[in-house]
């Protein structure tokens, strides 16, 4: 007896009918999380629905209201997309960190989000770019700010019948930049011990911070914004002291666990260092120093 049935609908309509059906219906985007979870019985499904053939879920384009990333679009495409690299550097960077080339060729940014791991690398980048999740079902469509999307480790607010259609990231204004860094003990192919994404928008005349957003991975039950750290920066000039204080506040926002990858204290220190570094990269990027553009 096979563990589950399989469908690969070519239209959103057809897919939503499947998701509204009886039993546990599970989406499969790249399958890099869900296939192993199904094989090892960590997740159950009566029906697995491959969502890669749905055109709306493969969208990747910038329009007046922002960047639309279809929920099944793979990390390789997002990482190499010139618009993403130019306006959403933290996202380009994080998509290029997910596993190996083989993994990035399949793994979707939307799959990374829906899997809802605290360590998900693309999520901090999406959070600092103020992403909204477009959720659809046979009942209709709703938009959820990504900050409200996660309800616990591996848990999202998606209801029975609902799937993520796309993520929308507003077009960032001039004099802004973003960056994502994570710490892993190896050079690649590992889960973040801690990850930090930062976004800065600066008034070029005064060097005052208009807007700051900082988000953390692997240091709380869900990916989180470090709002206290953002408030330290906003409305003030961007000085060394301010950056140091923001880094302290970001570490306070972290509520990490101790596990094999690192102790809670170590993770808090990492958040401090990575916050300082990502803010420095944002500053350089705004100043037009392209030395640290997202790597290949």
């Amino acid at each position, binding site marked *: 007896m096979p563990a589950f049935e399989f469908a690969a609908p070519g239209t959103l309509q057809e897919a939503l009918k499947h998701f509204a059906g009886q039993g546990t219906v599970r989406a499969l985007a790249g*399958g*890099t999380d869900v296939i192993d979870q199904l094989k090892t019985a960590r997740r159950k499904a009566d029906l697995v629905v491959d969502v890669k053939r749905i055109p709306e879920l493969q969208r990747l384009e910038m329009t007046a209201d922002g960047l639309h990333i279809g929920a099944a679009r793979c990390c390789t495409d997002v990482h190499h997309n010139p618009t993403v690299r130019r306006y959403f550097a933290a996202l380009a960077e994080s998509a290029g960190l997910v596993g*190996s080339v*083989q*993994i990035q060729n399949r793994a979707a940014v939307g799959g990374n989000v829906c899997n809802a791991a605290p360590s998900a690398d693309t999520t901090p980048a999406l959070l600092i770019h103020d992403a909204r999740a477009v959720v659809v079902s046979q009942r209709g469509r709703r938009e959820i700010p990504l900050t409200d999307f996660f309800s616990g480790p591996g848990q999202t607010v998606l209801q029975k019948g609902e799937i993520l259609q796309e993520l929308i990231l507003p077009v960032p204004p001039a004099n802004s930049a973003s960056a994502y860094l994570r710490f892993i003990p190896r050079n690649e192919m590992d889960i973040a011990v801690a990850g930090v994404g930062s976004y800065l928008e600066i008034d070029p005349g005064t060097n005052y911070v208009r807007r700051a957003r900082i988000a953390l991975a692997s240091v709380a039950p869900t990916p989180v914004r470090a709002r206290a750290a953002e408030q330290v920066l906003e409305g003030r000039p961007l000085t060394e002291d301010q950056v140091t204080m923001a880094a302290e506040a970001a570490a306070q926002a972290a509520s990490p666990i101790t596990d094999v990858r690192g102790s809670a204290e170590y993770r808090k220190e990492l958040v401090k260092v990575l916050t300082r570094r990502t803010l420095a990269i944002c500053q350089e990027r705004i100043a037009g120093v392209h030395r640290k553009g997202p790597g290949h």
Partner: protein
Amino acid sequence: MAKIPISFKVNGEQQEMLVEPDWTLLETLRDRMRLTGTKEGCSNGNCGACTVMIDGRTACSCLVLAGEADGREVITVEGLADHGHLTALQDAFIKEGGLQCGFCTPGFLISATALLKRNPDPSEQEIRLNVAGNLCRCTGYDKIVRSIQDAAQKMGTRAAN
């Protein structure tokens, strides 16, 4: 539940078959089609022994369901050689000793083939990054990297002539 029909190209040949809905592409290739060049190591995406190309892009076939391959074009290590003539990359692995037990080799060959197609003249760092999803327990990687460099050079010279 009934089996599902799939129709896909493997190493240039059109294939039609019925598969179990929970079969992976790896199981289908090895157990059903007897294409045992593609290896199973970890079964969870970490070792790269099961690497194949799907529509020109590498993937771990242990993390792909057979149904996902419907309508796609798959290339396995058996499909690299052209009518029995090894590719420059395969020759380089033999000449440079890019393998010992050979278990990881099919995966490395697929990853490196895809890399050289995208980037015919990769730096050592680019090579190492691009095969980071392939593990080798024997060689220590240096000879694998050298094999890929050697192939890139040969292919470059050939193209220049």
